[in-house]
């Protein structure tokens, strides 16, 4: 279905504890500061404990739904390799995929009941024309703290969003306590420049 609304739809996916909700908060705040309408949605509570976590972010001149339907997502930002595949039916052939090359075994894999699927990157190469793969956790370690993995991912995504650099810096400064600002500014910058744009 072709949409008239010109709303852009992002889907962040990963594992509880990777800072996905914080990342989507930062993205929404930045889009709001740019004067756009924005909505986001996610599920807290039981679903959060080490399980799959997603966050939908929709922005444009006027946004109604805070969630994207299947086949509607423009950019998938996957914080973990396997989690990228779980939401493949939210994507369309023209979708862009940003993939963090990082693996967290689900319990069934650790227990030896199932195998962690191999070659997920190749599956994406066949399905979409735009795939960006990055080792965000390693980059975050270089920035000074592996927990800034989420901010590295925001940095990579930022190249595709209509938000000025100074707004990103304002958002990062507002999102973290003073002792964590420098490492996260570095993480953002390293993410932003990690790939050729």
């Amino acid at each position, binding site marked *: 279905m072709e949409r008239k609304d010109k709303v852009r739809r992002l889907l962040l996916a990963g594992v509880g504890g990777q800072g996905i909700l914080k990342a989507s908060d930062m993205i929404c705040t930045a889009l709001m500061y740019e004067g756009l309408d924005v*909505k986001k949605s996610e599920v807290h509570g039981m679903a959060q404990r080490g399980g799959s976590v997603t966050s939908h972010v929709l922005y444009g001149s006027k946004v109604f739904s805070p969630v994207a339907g299947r086949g509607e997502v423009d950019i998938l930002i996957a914080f973990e390799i396997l989690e990228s595949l779980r939401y493949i039916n939210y994507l369309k052939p023209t979708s862009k995929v940003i993939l963090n090359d990082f693996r967290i075994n689900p319990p069934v894999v650790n227990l030896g009941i199932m195998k962690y699927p191999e070659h997920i990157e190749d599956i994406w190469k066949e399905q*979409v024309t735009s795939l960006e793969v990055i080792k965000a956790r390693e980059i975050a370690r270089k920035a000074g703290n592996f927990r800034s993995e989420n901010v590295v991912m925001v940095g990579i995504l930022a190249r595709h969003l209509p938000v000025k650099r100074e707004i990103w810096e304002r958002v990062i400064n507002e999102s973290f306590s003073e002792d964590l600002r420098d490492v996260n500014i570095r993480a953002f910058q390293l993410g932003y420049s990690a790939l050729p744009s």
Partner: protein
Amino acid sequence: MKALLSGNEAIARGAYEYGVRFGAGYPGTPSTEILEAFSKYEGVYAEWSPNEKVALEVGIGAALAGEKALVTMKHVGLNVAADPLFTVSYTGTNGALVIVSADDPSMHSSQNEQDNRNYAKFAKVPLLEPADSEEARRYVKIAFELSEKFDTPVILRTTTRVSHSKGIVELEEPTAYEDKRMIKPDVAKYVMVPAMARGRRHEVEKRLRALKEYANTCPENRIEMADPEVGIITAGMCYNYAKSVFPDYSYLKLGLVYPLPERLIRDFASRVKKLYVIEELDPFIEEQVKAMGISVVGKEIFPYAGEFDPGIIYEAITGKKNITLTPPEIEIPPRPPNLCPGCPHRGIFYVLGKLQVFVTGDIGCYTLAFMKPLEGLHSCICMGASVSMAHGMSKALKEKGRGKIVGVIGDSTFLHSGITPLIDIVYNKGEAVIVICDNRTTAMTGMQDHPGTGFTLQQELTKAVNYEELGRVLGLDSVRVVDPYDLKETEDVLKEELSRAGSSLIVSRRACVLYRREKVKQESLWVDEEKCVGCRQCLNVGCPSLSWIDFSDLPEGAYKKITKKQKGRALIDADSCTGCSICAQLCSKKAILRKG
């Protein structure tokens, strides 16, 4: 000023802007953040009550004293608070009383997906339903206005998608607090003995008639005429889903969902060719519209269970599906929520699973212990049911059940609904073993304080319930305390209590690893390759920090076998390991060691 707020934060903001300064509730996803946000505003009194019934009664008391009271809970919480709800509908509220019921279609974090709009009809009180954060902020004010104007409790119903979505909200200057507090007896209105209740019963019907009339002029019930071919009656989040896929159709968007605006509905129906009602869960609006003799399409094409999204609505009406990428033909391992690394519940449930007892469980993070590999929990119905069900089972089984039934309940859940059934066990000479998993907080909903933590919602120091003393005072035959990080002690005590006659209470005490007040920094553990024989014992606790390295996935020479038949070895992720040592206690080769 604009702000990006969740639906829950917006409700708190709206209440504060309206001059509300009194709030009570019990944490429950997706409602928890409302009272948390409200409690942080200047000059506000807010409390976590032990359960929703108490919270509502606290709110009724405050309203009777002239205050505007906000009471928050999740959908199943309103079941607990149903008793006062049905009668405060008769008495009216004096000040003002708004009850927020946060429903959970799709059961993201709940045991059922009941549709609490039914409570409004059942209790004969008005119900408003916002569609996003900005409406949440405005509707809570309308709810208080209606409560004041019609002397009625009002339900503000949200769903997970409204409560936990964020959107841009236009903040307004808060109204100054107006002190209307009073002590004014009015026994005919507030003493609901039969003679007086019969009188109030008619007041309820009069009020409902007045509210029905108001519904037709309520500005939040609005017709948006566009293409007259298709008309959609909808409310709440479904409005946004529908607008995003069908921007050109005509809408009757309802803000006041009970009682319904009959004239407005008839008017709208007469102006469109084909009429749909789009609503999640029960056909609440649909049945009432049909009862007006109006022909509508509803649940024959829309799902009756689970939450909707734009695609579900698009597909139901057009019969067409969006083009999506095709999932590859591989099995994607599921990733359900799991107990955190270092979770103290892991120790107690590992032992319970090992002892092969039947565990009646309860509501909390520990409910997850039903899964592989712990498999240490066998029922979950509602708050407090673990204690009463364990008693019921052991009474029914008699000697067949002796030493085989354990009821397990969290600390916050115990204080919510576990004490009365514990009295029942003592009173009726029950023999079930009850375990309180005291992790010092309400963990599942995000670390809320409760009467056992020693802190109030507004972070004042207060008294803390002592479970051991309480157990003794109630008359339990035996009260014990264990540290669930110590597997041997936990197993020994459980075995002793299971083998003895009489009632017994075990407090399994260890703070949640995420609980900031009792955070213990310990070095992470590691697996010594020179010692690990790949027996998988440690993996049986299901810790997310522990994983399995399959030697067949590695090139020759990249691994070392200790025994001939060894197929792999365990690995600990140092980033997430908290050093709790539960896995190390299971390692017969002493291959799991502490760093440093």
